[in-house]
């Protein structure tokens, strides 16, 4: 009997197969079929939803409360919409300490008001002990579209911008679980991407927040929306030296580590430097960089290529299975 595996929710190939083979055929309609990070509704509205099951619920750099607000805000931002309203659904496991719940609610409140979004509807469920894990949260977000992404306008020479150093959320969570008994000082990059909104008016063609599956998976997804290959220079990908050290020890490819406050942006060739300047002015964008470009001389349609720091080329595949360290 076929059973659901963890990988089906890891943001990798299995999840995309599940969406393509099961969800889309079942629910197919013109809005859903566009498959953006948000749905574009009549009346210039963008609508999105996301569930949060992070373990541990408190981690260096954030908690499930900051995550569930920022994550949904970011889905709207990268869809070209200004987030305005959120729903909040709590699924709480019986026995969760009230103090922890209050802390999470405070995080939610603070993050929402910092970003001028209002929580306007919600739901609370409590499940018996053992039938959940402390707390799961679902948020849905409604935003006003400023400008829709235009992947069809992407052409060779256009630049790929990453808005900050990658992989820190994924690694912070991995280490917070303490399976490796290792301390790195790395904090989650969990943050709202509202500061990217003005870029839509200034020519940005496409954005995607880099979450599960990491930068490699996002790049690989982008190749499905355009008719040209991508070429990324590994040496230009922003990464903190702390993270580089930690992933070397653990044998993890940082290109597959999740972020929660970073995005990949496609900018027209002649405006890329200008957009980069704007991003870098913001504290969350200080380490932003142009990491590569849309190609027509190297590779073929559908390929995301990486020129390694050593100069050799390799293909970036989407994440296929959960990350595990090598054994020897």
């Amino acid at each position: 009997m076929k059973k659901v595996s963890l990988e089906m929710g890891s943001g990798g190939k299995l999840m995309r197969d599940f969406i393509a083979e099961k969800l889309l055929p079942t629910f197919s309609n013109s809005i859903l079929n566009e498959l953006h990070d948000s749905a574009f509704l009549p009346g210039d509205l963008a609508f999105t939803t996301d569930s949060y099951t992070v373990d541990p619920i408190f981690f260096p750099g954030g908690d499930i409360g900051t995550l569930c607000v920022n994550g949904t805000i970011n889905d709207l931002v990268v869809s070209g919409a200004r987030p305005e309203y959120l729903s909040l659904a709590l699924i709480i496991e019986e026995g969760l300490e009230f103090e922890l719940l209050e802390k999470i609610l405070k995080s939610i409140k603070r993050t929402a008001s910092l970003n001028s979004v209002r929580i306007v509807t919600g739901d609370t469920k409590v499940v018996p002990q053992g039938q959940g894990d402390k707390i799961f949260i679902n948020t849905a977000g409604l935003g006003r579209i400023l400008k829709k992404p235009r992947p069809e306008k992407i052409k060779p020479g256009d630049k790929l911008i990453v808005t900050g150093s990658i992989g820190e959320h994924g690694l912070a969570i991995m280490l917070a679980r303490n399976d490796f008994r290792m301390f790195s000082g790395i904090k989650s990059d969990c943050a709202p991407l509202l500061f990217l909104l003005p870029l839509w008016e200034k020519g940005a063609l496409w954005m995607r927040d880099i979450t599960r599956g990491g930068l490699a998976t996002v790049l690989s997804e982008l190749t499905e929306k355009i008719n040209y290959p991508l070429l990324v220079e590994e040496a230009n990908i922003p990464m903190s030296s702390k993270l580089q050290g930690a992933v070397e020890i653990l044998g993890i490819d940082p290109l597959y580590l999740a972020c929660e406050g970073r995005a990949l942006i496609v900018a027209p060739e002649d405006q890329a430097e200008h957009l980069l300047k704007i991003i870098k002015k913001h504290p969350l964008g200080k380490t932003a960089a142009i990491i590569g470009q849309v190609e027509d001389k190297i590779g073929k349609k559908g390929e995301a290529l990486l020129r390694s720091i050593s100069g050799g080329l390799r293909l970036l595949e989407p994440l296929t299975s959960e990350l595990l360290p090598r054994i020897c």
Partner: protein
Amino acid sequence: MISKKSQTFALNNWRSRETVGKLLELIASRTRFLKTPVKIMEVCGTHTMTLHRFGLKPLLKQVGVEMISGPGCPVCITPDYFHEAIIDLITSQSNLIVCTFGDMTRVPTPKGALQTVVPKKGSKLQIVYSPEEALELARENPEKEIIFFGAGFETTIPGITFTAKKAFQEKLSNFSLLTAFWLIPPALEAIINSQELAISGFIYPGHVSVIIGEKPYSFVAQKYGLPGAIAGFEPADVLLGIASVVKQLKDNKPEVDNVYKRVVRPEGNTQALTLMSEMLEEVDADWRGLGVIPRSGLQLKPVYAQFDARRRYGLKLLPGKITASGCRCGDVIKGLISPQECPLFARVCQPDNPKGPCMVSYEGACLIEYKYSSGAKR
């Protein structure tokens, strides 16, 4: 030029385009005098990873060197029946905690994979990152029986064996090991003798060499006249090793070179070697793909039988059914075919639905090829 960025991360100097470019030039200046392509086997899966991750294989091809992946992935060369034996045990006995590394749980066998079988009530599977964790579980759960299932080469053998020594010293009666311990030098000899491959030299595994040193490889040069170099795992390390092998070929002076001297001592790690000879004995071992190789495995000496799960539980480790029909992991391990030449590769056999161990292990040639090479795009 060393960029500001690479100063912040020391390893980048071993990876930079400038360093790599110079080494490739050096290799080219030597292969000029040789019949190309020069075929060199990288024995270790981590070397395979370096070659793919940094895109070195096509660059090497341009300078007349073809790299062939060897048997250097312990998960890949462990036959199915080890997994089947532990699957039989965990599904039939209660009160067990079977500990192992992540990759080991995903190896597909005719009886399923450890990860997918349902343990008998009261027993469970636990993924660990170090054999010490299994030992800790044994201390914490005196009412449970803890088995650590570990496959490894000389690199990991001492670490795993050390847990049995600790258990012996602490008189822990609820801890045992199911070992699949493999020795690299006898496997090299088997590959050379199989004569199916025209290999001109070897890149010896750096981590294994940390333990065993330089001497165990000397027969390759002396008896078979083949060059080799012990190398580390950064691009510059591997290329230095290749540069050494092609120099030995050009000068017709085969030897065991060591270009990983910053880590590998000529005599190896004597403390680890002492522990191994104190607790383990050599046995004939059955390698996936290579078959039975005399004295190519290690197991606990009879005096430590209580820590040896195969004796303790009377496990039958006998060849059974062959893995999924068409799977050619055995030929990939021998270096006879590249993963792309296997009819299952990327079509039927994929990381999320592996048909053989080489697609499971992070050091497996097929998974590495799938992850990093354009051939994996369907």
